[in-house]
């Protein structure tokens, strides 16, 4: 009688572990998906601001293109830091083009995510485009 009861308890523990493992696996996937969505949300919240800021900056300058680098926490950093360190970086690239209308100057802004990892002593980049603004008006002179 006691042996039978012990086997019941063992069976119960085994079944509970199985159900718990299954539920934990599903829940971990949900946590991970939620985390990824939150990270993407943070990127999408910061990228438009950074893009607009870079675009407003190029309006006052005479250069044809420019880029601004941000680190993983969206603090501005420089090319030297980017070249030397692994990690996540965001590049805001502004390229201007001349429109068909006279005195009209437009530009494109791209926000790209660089994930730099060290592999075999070398830094490798994985680049993803996360936001872009097309054909934005850049020329202040149009409006005098």
């Amino acid at each position, binding site marked *: 009688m006691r042996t039978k009861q012990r086997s019941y308890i063992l069976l119960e523990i085994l079944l509970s572990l199985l159900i718990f493992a299954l539920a934990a696996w599903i*829940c971990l996937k949900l946590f991970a998906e939620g985390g990824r969505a939150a990270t993407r949300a943070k990127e999408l919240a910061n990228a438009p601001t950074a893009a607009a800021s870079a675009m407003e900056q190029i309006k006052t300058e005479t250069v044809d293109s420019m880029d601004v680098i941000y680190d993983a926490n969206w603090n501005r950093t420089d090319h030297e830091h980017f070249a030397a360190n692994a990690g996540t970086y965001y590049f805001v690239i502004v390229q201007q083009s001349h429109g068909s209308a006279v005195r009209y100057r437009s530009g494109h802004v791209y926000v790209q995510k660089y994930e730099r990892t060290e592999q075999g002593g070398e830094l490798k980049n994985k680049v993803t485009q996360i936001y872009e603004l097309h054909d934005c008006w850049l*020329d202040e002179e149009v409006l005098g």
Partner: protein
Amino acid sequence: MKRPSPIGAVTVITAIMVLCLTVFAALAYSSGQAELRLAQAGAQAVSDYYEADSQAAKLVAMALEGRTEQELRASVATTWDHETPIAVDYDGRTLRAEIPAGRRQTLHIEVDRMYNVAKRGYEAHIVEWRTIADTEVGTE
């Protein structure tokens, strides 16, 4: 003799743990998705605004070149592929346009084309360049 219950303490504890885990996981997931939707809407609003702003600047540039209202409208008809059309009103001196900037706001511009003697050319004088929430449109 009373038979032991098939559901023991281990099962009860596991059920409580699984329930808690599921609730927190669902909360984390839905919160992440809600944040993402909000950020996407914000990013789209910025894109929409700059698209409208760019379109407005093109209209102003064309007006400064001496194009007519028909030409401005024809240009808008070929380049603007959105559901809500752009309203253009130009009498050769004052350009008024209402450009949809997303689903909930409109960029309203009013620009005067004025001759600058010193520069020997036309330049734009902005009377109004602002976004209006769609509930305000038509009430002004």
